[in-house]
């Protein structure tokens, strides 16, 4: 018992103050929102387009990156001969629609606006979510799990992962939705009593990720259920997921982006 108390004192309090304080530091090499400087593009160069594993980049009519397809692997930045495309360290990426995830030099990601007033009254202080991994590789799942640990402490926002869709207000989905999970995902969604929301976490759940256009998968959650929040990343940093959830619930002061 004494050892336990000694350990408790040693471990201390680790919960971050964010959003009431600054967010935790991210590593220097963290790859967040892309930074596009079109003036640096070499005429006729399509190195970034060719390098991208998931065809997330187009050059015409202007350089655009679809963050819903982006794996944040950085291959485009490595391939770019002129530094026109690099990765910044802004972790704020979540949006309410697929179109809002396509970014250009002029337009950053249109960060998620909050749910309407009625939904905020229902979910703003208590949001119970059922997680469904529909072909996820366990990285997005792990980062969702981490939000429940002491540093992030999702519970302090009234957000909780629950054991059954019957206890839930919505789903938080990972994975491209494999063929073998389509029915289970649909049934789980139907078992949630309305009103309900759906959050898609990670490139796979948004667009299929590396598995885009596979016969074995479905190119993302919104091919099966309606989605209210898209959180890009492969996997998204816990801070990106948390930022998205708090924006959805209208609990973040700054609007960010444009």
């Amino acid at each position, binding site marked *: 018992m004494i050892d336990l108390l000694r350990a408790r004192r040693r471990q201390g309090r680790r919960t971050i103050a964010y959003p009431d304080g600054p967010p935790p530091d991210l590593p220097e*090499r963290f790859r967040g929102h892309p930074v596009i400087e079109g003036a640096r593009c070499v005429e006729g160069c399509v190195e970034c387009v060719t390098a991208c594993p998931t065809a997330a980049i187009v050059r015409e009519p202007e350089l655009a990156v679809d963050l819903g397809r982006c794996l944040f692997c950085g291959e485009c930045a490595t391939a770019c001969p002129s530094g026109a495309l690099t990765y910044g360290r802004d972790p704020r990426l979540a949006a309410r629609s697929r179109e809002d995830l396509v970014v250009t030099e002029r337009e950053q990601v249109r960060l998620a606006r909050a749910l309407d007033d009625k939904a905020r009254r229902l979910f703003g202080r208590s949001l119970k979510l059922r997680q469904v991994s529909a*072909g996820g590789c366990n990285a997005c799942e792990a980062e969702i799990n981490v939000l429940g640990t002491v540093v992030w402490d999702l519970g302090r926002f009234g957000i909780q992962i629950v054991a059954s869709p019957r206890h839930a207000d919505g789903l938080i989905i990972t994975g491209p939705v494999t063929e*073998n999970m389509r029915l289970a995902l649909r049934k789980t969604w139907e078992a949630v009593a309305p009103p309900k929301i759906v959050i898609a976490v990670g490139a796979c759940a948004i667009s299929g990720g590396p598995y885009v256009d596979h016969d*074995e998968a479905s190119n993302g959650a919104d091919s099966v259920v309606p989605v209210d929040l898209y959180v890009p990343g492969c996997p998204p940093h816990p801070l990106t997921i948390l930022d998205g959830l708090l924006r959805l619930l209208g609990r973040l002061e700054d609007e960010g982006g444009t």
Partner: protein
Amino acid sequence: MTPLSRLPSLRSGGAVPRSAIPDLGWADFARVLHTAVAQGWRVAAYFGAAEGSAVRLHLVLADDDASELAVATTLIDGATFPSLAGDCAQVDLFEREIAEQHGLSPAGHPRPGPVRFSRTLDPRAASGATPPAPDAPGTQDFYTVAGEEVHEVGVGPVHAGVIEPGHFRFQCHGEEVFHLEISLGYQHRGVERALLGGPDRRTLAYVETAAGDTTIGHATAYCEVVEALARCRVPSRGAALRGLALELERLANHVGDLGALAGDVAFLPTASWCGRLRGDFLNLTAELCGSRFGRGLARPGGAAFDADGELAARMLDRLEAAAADCRSAIELLWDSASVMSRFERTGTVPREVAVELGLVGPAARASGLDRDARRDHANGIFRSHPIPVAAADSGDVHARAYVRWIEIQRSVDFARELLRALPHGAARDPVRDATPDRLAVSLVEGWRGEICHVALTDGDGRFARYKIVDPSFHNWSALAWAMRGQQISDFPLCNKSFNLSYCGHDL
């Protein structure tokens, strides 16, 4: 001359011409397997590759004592192939996979059935018929125990926690489990099919997400195969960085597992602190390459990110702090009577069962098997910086937990040594194109156990076949075995003590 001596030998991270692998008749092929297993060798991989309208079976055997691998092949030119699983449990699941991937029937298999409920890998040109669509997963006839007092419990695919899907069908009598049958395939994404004809711009994304919490393990195995095919060496500094990343991955997952095990027995102090500490190790990996899961780090030729003296020093400080906090959090487990009474003698897998099933990783070591690919098939930095192999012998949840604790401490020692003195030179050298018509193999000790990648190149140096064996492919059978005679309420604890990958199995 024994059939084994006819086989070309190679080491992990090596390649042989496909023409040098003897094409054995079935009788000799079967004899190779029986002889090898009788001598204590293991089946690292057993899979098929399309050859015209036929299927060539490839058997990759591992001799841990001699640190050698041997490969044998045989051609199957019909709709069936003889099963060897009755005498050799290690090939049980491999044979079911061959059957499913190539539309063959394993004659005499003790319990045939789908593995992933997936399409075949290659259209069977000879038959001309389109292969039938696979059945829906979890709809097969499960093994059933008859009796008025017997009840059946089905769990999944969607589980109560934040975890990948699988289906578990229990035959129970009251609280006691008579039998557990595990049905997977829900995570099948078509990785091996998509790797055919590669490498291409998506190949690394597939390899890194095959089992997404083992990115470094699988990416390292892939890199070693590509380097073997290109006949090039990795600079020491690159090998060291890859080894460091592999051990950081092991640390993050082992610490997380011990926390989760504590959570499963309601010991909240360790559960709570390990949850945080896992993140500290993930953040160390992110310092190195920008990704907590090591995406983008391991690349053919070495490591795509380097750590200068200043970064290495900072990482070392954080490693020491995390390691000290881990000791404080984890040692409480062994002193807590409530934890130990749940852990000890729960989910026991005896040594002889572990041998028979061909288990790998901490689960195997917990049952007394002295096997670890970092020592037995050392490649890269592990040749010059060996890590002592952890061992236990009770084979229960406690042993599987304690082996992880030993490995945590040894991985910290290894990481500390490397961060203090990374070898000089480049982190990565350029890599030539792959040699055509080769077979290359690599074994990497991922945190769950031995990962095996096998690549066959065609006349253009492209992948004619790419086989990924995640350690979970060997070990899921152990969970089914361990649950026999246990209380069903101990299932989450047993499951967590193995912590196997669903997507690594399903691919």
